């Protein structure tokens, strides 16, 4: 718990900086930090996981120490400080409204103006004698380095994308290897962003559940195990879009995410009806609705990937969204038609 007197647990003490004192931060994550990270990955308190912007110290920095700039999303701040073990540097935290560097740069909150504002607010030129700061490379979409230099006198050096590469970057004499400059999207990274996608699917999961239960009632069923089992394909379609496609991303054929989702959805729907399917209307309903659901979630995953462009997303949406809607509408109509005939 945060102690009002002492401040958060990751503040170890205070150090003189220019005309005042700044907090010294720990480079070790506590259990609380780690659990907080797990929570936000699952969408819990994600929008308010932030720290106070301003200047912080790591180790025993002095007027010659380097200045690293970061965002005030605590998950970002934590992944930075845990990689600064044994170093003495200044950390300038921008007010990005609790958003990570990459997304904040896209919105402009990790941006030129905010840097100029913070450099003045913490009086950075009185803290350090040099005139240089290191920005995360993924902040570059929001920052015009030459404008920052013109307005503050501080030269901008773009550091590596991943905080884990910072020690090597510093040892290299502030030179980044090509590997430090390119975004990756490894299985581990895909798994890390997956929970939020899953949590955000609840509205559609609920809609599918309501539709399914209503149809079951209309068909004369009450709440029973068979109704529950009948819903599993819908739940499966959501899991395929939110988990299977992200995990298998590089290996599912096609470039469009919506297509990848549809393909995985239709294959699994076929497998399902081959094993459990019975009358043709029910099977056709599954073949129309399930791949459409998977396709929609796979399309939504575009925002979590670091390799999609806005132009590309717009292009695939123009094709995919109408097809998804038509497919679902046909499926629903067919389901109602099947019920009506049954009555």
């Amino acid at each position, binding site marked *: 718990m945060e102690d009002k007197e002492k401040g958060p647990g990751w503040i170890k003490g205070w150090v003189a900086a220019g005309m005042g004192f700044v907090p010294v931060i720990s480079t070790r994550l506590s259990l609380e930090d780690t659990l907080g990270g797990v929570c936000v990955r699952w969408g819990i308190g994600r*929008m*308010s996981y*932030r720290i106070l912007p301003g200047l912080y110290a790591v180790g025993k920095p002095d007027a010659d120490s380097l200045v690293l700039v970061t965002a005030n999303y605590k998950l970002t701040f934590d992944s930075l400080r845990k990689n600064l073990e044994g170093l003495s540097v200044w950390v300038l935290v921008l007010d990005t*409204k*609790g*958003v990570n560097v990459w*997304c904040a*740069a*896209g*919105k402009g*909150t990790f941006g030129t103006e905010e840097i100029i504002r913070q450099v003045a607010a913490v009086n950075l030129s009185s803290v350090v004698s040099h005139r240089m700061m290191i920005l995360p*490379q*993924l902040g*570059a*979409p*929001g*920052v*015009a*380095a*030459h404008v920052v230099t013109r307005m503050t006198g501080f030269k901008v050096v*773009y550091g590596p*994308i991943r905080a884990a590469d910072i020690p090597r970057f510093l040892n290299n004499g502030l030179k*980044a290897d*090509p*590997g430090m*400059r*390119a*975004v*990756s*999207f490894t299985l581990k990274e895909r798994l890390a962003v997956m929970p939020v996608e899953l949590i955000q699917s609840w509205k559609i999961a609920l809609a599918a559940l309501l539709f399914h239960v209503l149809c079951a009632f209309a068909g004369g069923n009450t709440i029973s195990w068979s109704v529950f089992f009948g819903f599993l394909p819908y739940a499966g379609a959501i899991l395929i879009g939110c988990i299977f496609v992200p995990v298998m*991303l*590089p290996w599912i054929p096609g*470039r*469009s*995410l919506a297509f990848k989702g549809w393909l995985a959805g239709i294959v699994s729907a076929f497998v399902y009806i081959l094993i459990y399917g019975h009358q043709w209307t029910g099977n056709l309903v599954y073949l129309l609705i399930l791949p459409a659901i998977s396709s929609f979630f796979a*399309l*939504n995953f*575009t*925002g979590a*990937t*670091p*390799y*999609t*462009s*806005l*132009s*590309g*997303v*717009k*292009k*695939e*949406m123009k094709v995919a969204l109408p097809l998804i809607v038509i497919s679902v509408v046909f499926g629903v109509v067919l389901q109602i038609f099947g019920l009506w005939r049954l009555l």
Partner: protein
Amino acid sequence: MINSMRYLKNVVTLNLDKTKCTGCGRCTEVCPRTVLTLSNGKVETIDRDACIECGACSRNCPFEALTVSAGVGCAYAVIRGALKGTAPDCACSGKSDCC
């Protein structure tokens, strides 16, 4: 390994005006997708389809040699923006502290 994952072909809006380029190399430093490279004192586009239109290169070019219609490739944001009649909006910002 680099750029192993590829999105749609021939869609990006990236444009390079070589006459304005001074070969400072800043864009090659900020590009997270290794789209650009320096050769013979000028920048060259070596991997156009890898571009994700993040806008880092154009924002950091002091000579306005690079232009790109920058944005975030997020379908959810495009849908939200279309529903609200605004630009793409992903709701991943601090405006809604409610939830």
